């Protein structure tokens, strides 16, 4: 079993599900011959033909609208938005229709569709290519929002997303598309949605993250361990709806919670997690709830993106502050 990257795991899951279920079709800009600008759909048009791997015209509202129409007919479209920064023309379709078709028709029309988009900073990309706006989607009831942090999860969660009978926004942390490899068996086993992953058990502090920032968070946990601090590390994975039970259980044990996210701090997912802890786990808290975030400013052009993105050092600093809190 060869080790594969996160993006290869996405491809493997797409291929697996396309073989399994002929209702699964891929669509998007450049997903066909080119195999996607990040190569997530590389080779799939050759394997499944132009009818199942569809290069669309250049229009994101249209891509989302097409997916809605196709899904309403029982197909399972997996649509790619080339970068999350270009998803905005599609949000009208996703928020006004995608998220609520089942609800408004009392279950008569349902939308088993997936919207994939690479997101996040750190690859020296041009303007509008590096944002993390998952919180916008997570606030919309009726959508599920999933962010895999590593190859195994990309595979298992993508299968789950495609099989889910409701619309799933699947956000791929492009900075870590190729930085780690896992041995992933192509066994068709989906991971559950709406379940956090406890990646490391610990007793002193709970570090909560998702997507690319999991990598810095895990590194920080290593360093904390060197200093005798035992961090529990949770990968939220499905960022909406969030499995708060796992998080609250962990905080009950450690008494300290810190969220690490790439997005601007204000009104982000970290705020929601902190608010839930403050509502339901306050009695366990030995320290304020920490948030290590991108800043509340526009994602800068790439020369400053390193200054913008949370680092292992920032995580360590904040974690130590919380540990020292009296």
């Amino acid at each position: 079993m060869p080790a594969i990257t996160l993006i290869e795991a996405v491809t493997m899951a797409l291929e697996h599900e396309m073989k399994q279920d002929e209702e699964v079709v891929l669509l998007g800009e450049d997903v066909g011959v080119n195999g996607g600008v990040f190569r997530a759909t590389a080779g799939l048009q050759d394997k499944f033909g132009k009818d199942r791997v569809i290069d669309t015209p250049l229009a994101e509202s249209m891509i989302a609208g097409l997916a809605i129409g196709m899904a309403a007919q029982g197909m399972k479209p997996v649509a790619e938005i080339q970068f999350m920064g270009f998803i905005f023309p599609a949000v009208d379709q996703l928020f006004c229709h995608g998220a609520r078709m089942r609800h408004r028709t009392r279950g008569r029309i349902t939308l088993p569709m997936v919207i994939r988009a690479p997101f996040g900073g750190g690859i020296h990309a041009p303007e509008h290519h590096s944002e993390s706006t998952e919180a916008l989607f997570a606030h919309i009831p009726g959508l599920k929002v999933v962010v895999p942090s590593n190859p195994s999860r990309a595979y298992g969660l993508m299968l789950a997303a495609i099989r889910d009978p409701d619309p799933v926004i699947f956000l791929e942390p492009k900075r870590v598309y190729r930085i780690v490899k896992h041995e992933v068996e192509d066994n068709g086993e989906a991971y559950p949605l709406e379940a956090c992953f406890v990646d490391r058990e610990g007793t002193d502090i709970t570090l909560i993250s998702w997507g690319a920032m999991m990598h810095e968070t895990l590194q920080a946990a290593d360093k904390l361990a060197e200093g005798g601090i035992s961090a529990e590390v949770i990968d939220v994975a499905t960022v909406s709806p969030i499995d708060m039970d796992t998080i609250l259980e962990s905080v009950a044990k450690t008494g300290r919670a810190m969220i690490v996210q790439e997005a601007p701090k204000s009104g982000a997912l970290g705020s929601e997690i902190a608010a839930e802890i403050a509502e339901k786990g306050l009695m366990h808290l030995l320290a304020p709830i920490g948030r290590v975030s991108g800043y509340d400013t526009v994602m800068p052009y790439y020369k400053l993106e390193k200054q913008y993105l949370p680092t292992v050092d920032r995580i360590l600093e904040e974690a130590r502050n919380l540990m020292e809190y009296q």
Partner: protein
Amino acid sequence: MTTVASFEIKHRQFLDANGKPVSKKLPDFAKDTELLRSLYADMMRLRVFDAKAYALQRTGNMGTYPASLGQEAIGIGYGSVMTKEDVLIPYYRSTGGLLKHGVTMEEILLYWGGNEAGSDYSVAREDFPICVPIANQCLHATGVATAIKMRGQKRAVVTEIGEGGTSEGDFYEGINVAGIWNLGVVFVINNNKWAISVPSEIQTACDTYAQKAISAGIEGIQVDGNDIIAMREVSDYALDKARNGGGATLIEAVSYRLCDHTTADDASRYRDKEEVEKGWQEEPVLRLRKYLESQKAWSDKDEDKLKEELAAEIEQAVENYRNTPVPPPEAMFDNLYAELPDSVRQQRQAAIKRGAQ
């Protein structure tokens, strides 16, 4: 300069405002008096239903409602050539099309009465719910048509939009992809001249809306939308084409909104009386009646009988509507997802508890 492309937009009309044929060659179906009588009844049905819906709103028994007054030939026209297998993607003023395609009066009242049950169509199960946000339904139509095409089915998809709605990007994205993929979609523009208070001149510099089809490389036809014979003929052509791989058509149905935009609107604030009076002289129901009368195919007695039947039918629908209980609080949650997440399940419980208080 050399000419590299040229285009024409055609206009279709059979009956003039007084119900007189403008040409000798009426389509074949127009010889079928029974059919024309039934189309007349359908338009009347819509008109009487609208009036009832208005009354329900005015008496506090229903929410905002958009009537189709003066535009009855459009929805009844395309609706009359739809088969059960065809799919309708309506906008909020598609009551005519919905009724013709099997959606019940009761469902339509429930929808505007604020109850999701109204979107759970008992008959036209694949039709989309009424689309309130302008223009984005155009893209659903292309998506449905894509699925139909991929599966090799012979089904047409019809979607309707107001002339104001053609200013939205989604409209163009829809006709564009329908052109590229040769999708079996019929886009019907209800050009009733007004978008709430905004007149058509503010929506386009074009002489016709049909010419917007040229930007998508599809066929565009302008039709007198107050002439049910023309409306049916052009729709029949376009749906047939759609079912048989001939691709998309854009139909501009020229009509006039004789009513307020909705019950929440007061058109006298922004429209001249004279204009509305002129509109009344062109309206589709009387036009067909005059034609039928000229053919000795309609009488005052027929009219009375029809009105009586319609009143009874509508009364029954209203009664069913009014007897439908308000949904329980848990209905807010029960179709959010196939399976409700734990976190939301707790909110559901709380809502039930509070609702019972």
